[in-house]
């Protein structure tokens, strides 16, 4: 159909809007990976001895591991010696204590990203811990949070100020040798966020982190750790953007969530990393390990992700439902356009009794995009009365893209109830014509149809971010017109 083709053409022509480079002198380690590099990172961050040892142990594991190749992805070989593992804005030594001290250029960068720290933070009541390359440069609302007993700071800061908490929980959900990229992260991670919500506290605001990869050929290896004590609640959002570069940039993050008894963690991601150009050149390689541990009874962990960026996405936010009556949820929208590839999904591991999980996955493929859902639902022998519901929908826009579904279901307890529904549809030429016939332009029609398709996921996002996610999808599908 000509109309469809022209829509796709427009989408293919769509340019990455966050492609600019901030001109800041970076304090960057030369490329290469060795024990010395890890020691250098650890030394720069003035880390305690145990953490250095922990990193080195991970590195030694990593050396013995091989890059996994089971995903439905075509990945060019990654030269790990060509990557620089540390890059910090120059003012590392005397880090800014408040936003006023932050390099104005940095703030300008956030502005271009549409994340004016103070404005946004004040208006939306959001505390933003912004990670600019590898070092956190500004944290807002910290004092107010502290009043509630909430700790929300950069990972490095947590290592300095709350080492006992970090040591207790670090690696307790994603072990060092969990997988190739997680092991790499353990060895070389530079910064990230740390959240601790004490017993019975409902975090008074949404917590948010914006990640951005800036320096050329700099891999970013963040580490996020969120601990919710008994009966506490927290909602956390991360947004990610990276500048435009020809070469591929590696990103391998690890996120660990721990929910104790009756705790509730909601983790939302809006990911808009540079996807590469229309010929598939450049873009972020995004290999992320995210896992939540529902350690206590009646705890709940909910992952919501909107993934529109990256050349390659390899990501399976998971829940280990250890506590009885615990609940795991996964809501995902993944959009691939041009030559983007995504292999994403979740794992729900049911261990406790009466554990429940819900998976809603929406994959959208356009251009030459390849989108795979890969999900594991495992009911272990002692997980009496476990329940899972999985709904997995794919939408194809155009005829050169692909959607794939790889559900794995392992049930070892006869009382389990597991449901799986999957649909694949092409964006209806019917739907498009119906909208056009009512006077709606093709572009508006496509974004309206896609938005409707994603609604189940969007309504899980905190309000202000749902608006943003919707806008992001529109931008990704909008095309050069207008």
């Amino acid at each position, binding site marked *: 159909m000509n109309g469809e083709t022209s829509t796709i053409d427009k989408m293919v022509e769509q340019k990455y809007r966050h492609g600019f480079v901030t001109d800041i002198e970076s304090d960057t380690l030369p490329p290469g990976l060795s024990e010395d590099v890890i020691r250098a990172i650890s030394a720069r961050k003035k880390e305690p001895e145990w953490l250095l040892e922990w990193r080195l142990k991970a590195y030694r594991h990593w050396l013995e591991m091989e890059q996994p190749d089971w995903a439905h992805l075509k990945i060019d070989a990654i030269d790990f010696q060509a990557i620089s593992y540390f890059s910090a804005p120059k003012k590392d030594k005397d880090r800014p204590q408040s936003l006023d001290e932050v390099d104005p250029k940095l703030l300008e960068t956030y502005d271009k990203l549409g994340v004016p720290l103070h404005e946004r933070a004040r208006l939306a009541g959001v505390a933003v811990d912004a990670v600019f390359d590898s070092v956190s440069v500004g944290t807002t609302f910290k004092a107010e949070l502290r009043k509630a007993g909430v700790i929300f700071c950069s990972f490095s800061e947590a290592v300095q100020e709350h080492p006992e908490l970090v040591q207790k929980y670090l690696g307790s959900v994603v072990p060092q040798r969990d997988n190739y990229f997680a092991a790499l992260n353990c060895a070389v991670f530079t910064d990230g966020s740390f959240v601790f919500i004490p017993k019975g506290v409902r975090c008074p605001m949404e917590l948010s982190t914006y990640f951005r990869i800036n320096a050329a050929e700099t891999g970013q290896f963040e580490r996020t750790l969120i601990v919710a004590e008994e009966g506490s609640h927290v909602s956390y959002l991360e947004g990610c953007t990276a500048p435009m570069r020809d070469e591929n940039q590696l990103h391998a993050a690890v996120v660990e969530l721990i929910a104790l008894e009756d705790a509730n963690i909601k983790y939302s991601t809006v990911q808009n990393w540079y996807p590469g150009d229309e010929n598939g050149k450049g873009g972020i390689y995004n290999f992320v390990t995210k896992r939540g541990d529902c350690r206590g009874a009646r705890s709940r962990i909910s992952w919501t992700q909107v993934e529109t960026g990256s050349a390659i996405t390899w990501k399976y936010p998971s829940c280990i439902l250890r506590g009885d009556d615990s609940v795991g949820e996964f809501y995902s929208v993944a959009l691939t356009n041009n030559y983007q590839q995504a292999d994403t999904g979740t794992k729900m591991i049911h261990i406790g009794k009466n554990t429940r999980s819900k998976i809603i996955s929406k994959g959208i493929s356009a251009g030459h995009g390849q989108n795979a859902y890969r999900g594991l639902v495992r009911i272990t022998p002692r997980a009496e009365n476990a329940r899972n519901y999985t709904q997995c929908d794919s939408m194809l826009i155009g005829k050169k893209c692909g959607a794939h579904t790889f559900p794995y279901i392992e049930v070892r307890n006869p009382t389990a109830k597991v449901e799986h529904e999957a649909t694949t549809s092409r964006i209806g030429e019917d739907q498009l*014509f119906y909208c056009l016939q009512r006077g709606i332009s093709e572009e508006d029609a496509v974004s309206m149809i896609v938005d409707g398709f994603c609604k189940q996921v969007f309504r899980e996002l905190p309000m202000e971010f749902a608006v943003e996610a919707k806008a992001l999808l529109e931008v990704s599908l909008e095309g050069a017109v207008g």
Partner: protein
Amino acid sequence: MSIMLKITDLHAKVAGKEILKGLNLELEAGEIHAIMGPNGAGKSTLGYVLAGREGYEVTRGEILFNGKNLLEMEPEARACEGVFLAFQYPVEIPGVNNTYFLRTALNAQRKYRGEEILDSVGFLRLVREKLEVLHIGDELLHRAVNEGFSGGEKKRNEIFQMAVLEPTLAILDETDSGLDIDALKTVAEGVNRLRSKDRGMIVVTHYQRLLDYIVPDKVHVLADGRLVATGGAELALKLEEQGYAWLEDGGIASLNVASAVQTANP
């Protein structure tokens, strides 16, 4: 009375096959024309060609709508010019709220015509007004576009959209199909309320019964891609009594459409 729609020698192909083979039609403002005919005669094709659906290729002929060349316009521009197609099978758009959809459509049309955009308050006021005129409840407003609607609800929703968008020319494509008699009456009543001296309507139907409720000014018989007979409401009754086979028996003098009807019935 002025000619609103003038179709001259219209030929159109779908998937390489010629469906319309020289159709002529003139419609004046305020008139309702019924187009009847056997399955496959090209009734729906005519609606799609008027609306500008892709894949419906006009190979010859002309369509003037209020003096403008309709065939040169994109489908959304035709809609904005006032052409409305009530679909035989209204399309479901999951997750898109019916009210939001309609407001987007109305505002797109208003913008095209250089009119002010309606905000949600103004729009809701308009919607309430129309619901009242049509005697329908507001239960359709809060649902996704046609999603999970019954056949009757879908058709009512089409008429509701038509009431809100206030087209100049409305084409009702087999609006009666799949409706029981009560639903048919409701829909027909809605259509009758939208009759106006400024609005033309083309009612496409396979059966006469719809025309008991929507009384047309003219009835045309479409067979093998052409209008083969034109008359008043009595023509519809005759078709009902005798079936389309009657056409084959040369019921209409000097017309031999037998082979055409056969090929058009796959």
